[in-house]
């Protein structure tokens, strides 16, 4: 073996770094840059025109509503679930712990199908909702449900290690100092998990904004009714309306970049809170 192939030499390190950056550029930077370039090629006026259409505005509005509802639902239930998991011992706990990650493993399309099976018009529970005049499928509730399902692990997975690391002593101290359960949560538990909750929620929102498969299955992709921004892009592309597809894509990319910046700030803040723990 020649010395030059040894990864610990200077030449070796440069070779590894170059390959890594090339890979990174090929699968990430190039497509992203190309899309932005192509989009701008249509001219700002054409893009704005497309974005001002009723279908586009509705799609973005719907996407924002779904993301917001998903964040609230997974935030609240994520906290409840993480606290139950770390503060109580119950039968089947380790199985449930493994199941939390299931949404990451299951294809979103399959997730959408599962939701239709249960909440569809002839589904197990959908039958009931249909009866009370609140259809789940091809409507907002089903789309939120799909989004909640797909992003479910983010908050829980952020909170569990933080709660485990913090232990129960601070909460016990608060109890002995006279704090009722709600005050223990508000004054001690919540400030402990705040950083991780913000981070987990931001991941939830980011993922929810881009969710396609699960939402496509449960929404039926009806323009001006159940079409989200990613579905709008897909539809515009399928209809050869390239300026619309690129315009909406550009907005989604800008939002994604904004989310990344926010995530970076929050991660630093979360880590700073972590370091304070003594």
């Amino acid at each position, binding site marked *: 073996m020649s010395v030059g192939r040894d990864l610990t030499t200077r030449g070796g390190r440069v070779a590894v770094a170059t390959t890594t950056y090339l890979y990174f550029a090929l699968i990430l930077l190039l497509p992203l840059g190309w899309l932005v370039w192509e989009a701008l090629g249509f001219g700002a006026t054409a893009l704005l025109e497309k974005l001002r259409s009723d279908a586009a505005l509705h799609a973005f509005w719907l996407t924002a509503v779904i993301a917001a509802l998903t964040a609230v639902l997974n935030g609240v239930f994520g906290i409840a679930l993480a606290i139950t998991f770390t503060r109580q011992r119950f039968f089947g706990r380790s199985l449930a712990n493994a199941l939390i990650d299931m949404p990451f493993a299951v294809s979103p399309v399959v997730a959408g199908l599962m939701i239709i099976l249960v909440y569809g018009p002839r589904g197990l529970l959908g039958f009931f909702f249909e009866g009370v005049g609140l259809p789940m499928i091809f409507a907002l509730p089903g789309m939120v449900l799909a989004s909640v399902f797909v992003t479910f692990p983010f908050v829980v997975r952020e909170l569990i290690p933080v709660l485990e690391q913090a232990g129960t002593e601070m909460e016990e101290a*608060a109890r002995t100092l006279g704090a009722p359960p709600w005050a223990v949560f508000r004054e001690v538990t919540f400030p402990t998990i705040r950083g991780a909750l913000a981070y987990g929620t931001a991941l939830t929102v980011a993922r929810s904004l881009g969710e396609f498969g699960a939402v496509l299955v449960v929404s039926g992709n009806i323009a001006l009714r159940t079409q989200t921004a990613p579905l709008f892009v897909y539809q515009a592309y399928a209809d050869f309306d390239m300026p619309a597809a690129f315009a909406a894509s550009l907005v989604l990319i800008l939002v994604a970049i904004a989310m990344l910046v926010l995530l970076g700030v929050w991660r630093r803040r979360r880590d700073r809170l972590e370091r304070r723990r003594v």
Partner: protein
Amino acid sequence: MRIEVRNLSKAFSGVPVVRDVSFTVEEGQLVALLGPSGGGKSTILRIVAGLEDPDAGSVTLGDRRVERVPARERGIGFVFQHYALFPHMTVADNIGFGLKVRKQPPGEVARRVEEMIALVGLQGLGERYPHELSGGQRQRVALARALAPSPRVLLLDEPFGAVDAKVRHDLRTWLRRLHDNVGVTSVFVTHDQSEALEIADRVIIVHHGRIEQNDTPEGIWRGPANAFVAEFVGATNRIAGRVAGDEIDAGFLRHPRPAGLEDGAPVLVLARPAEVMLHPVGEDESPARVHRISFVGHSMKVEVEVPGHGTLTAEIPPAVVRAKELVPGRPVRVTLSAAQIFPSDTTPPGTITTAARRQGRLSSLFSRLRRARA
């Protein structure tokens, strides 16, 4: 306030941790629960605090039965080994927490916080965060926080366990003085016998979930109730013997016989290293030989090997070691200036088991278990 614990029992997943424990702490006393790790003393303390529910038995604070009363209504203060300070609050907010959640007016809270900061000697540190303090300072904040709502009982779980040796020593004399100033009935848990004997009014020795002895520090030091207590308070040399006439015959050594033992009965002789006396003798006059001498600060540790029996440990002032010309290999006769003698099973006379070594092994096992669990 008086604490009365009656017939307390507690098991965790079927494993008994506290077994039928009863004791009383009188108003204004400072009492230590002393024992090896995993003996159940922290669980007893946590049951008194209301952080664990007992399986059986009663806890009475003053004249009120409290087993079913939530921790927040018991009027106790609790200090944790690892401080359990709230990292997102300043020192002042930590100390004021118990008053704030009890809806005291802000002015009153601020006044009391100032008072507590002065009491524990942390003036000028009120706006710091816990992570900006040293271990000793953190423990003072924890104590101030527990005392701020004027608890009628103060409970401390290994309060000095997490600070280093020097600070630990300062903190314990400081705690005793603080207790004398405040006068609140206090119970603290420790596995350090010197800590318990130095500052407690009474020491309750807990082992395997049971109380082995409940006495004054001097009573425990002078009259351990059984072999376990004697060992735990420093009598680390265990020598098996037999009552023979006016003496205890332990093979290579003899000791005056205490009253109340039958002739021929097997006994266990326990002696602290400082109670072991060595006398240089001629080559064939004693089987015991000095094996190793090491420096332990205030005295020399002399290990004596007795062939066929084991090794004894003596602690002897350096001047005496020099005067008696104790060097490794030197034959010595062993006597005991004092010893605790208990009836025993029938171990052959003279067999030595060094308690310190067994305890060391046990505690390292425990710490390994704790690490594995963490």
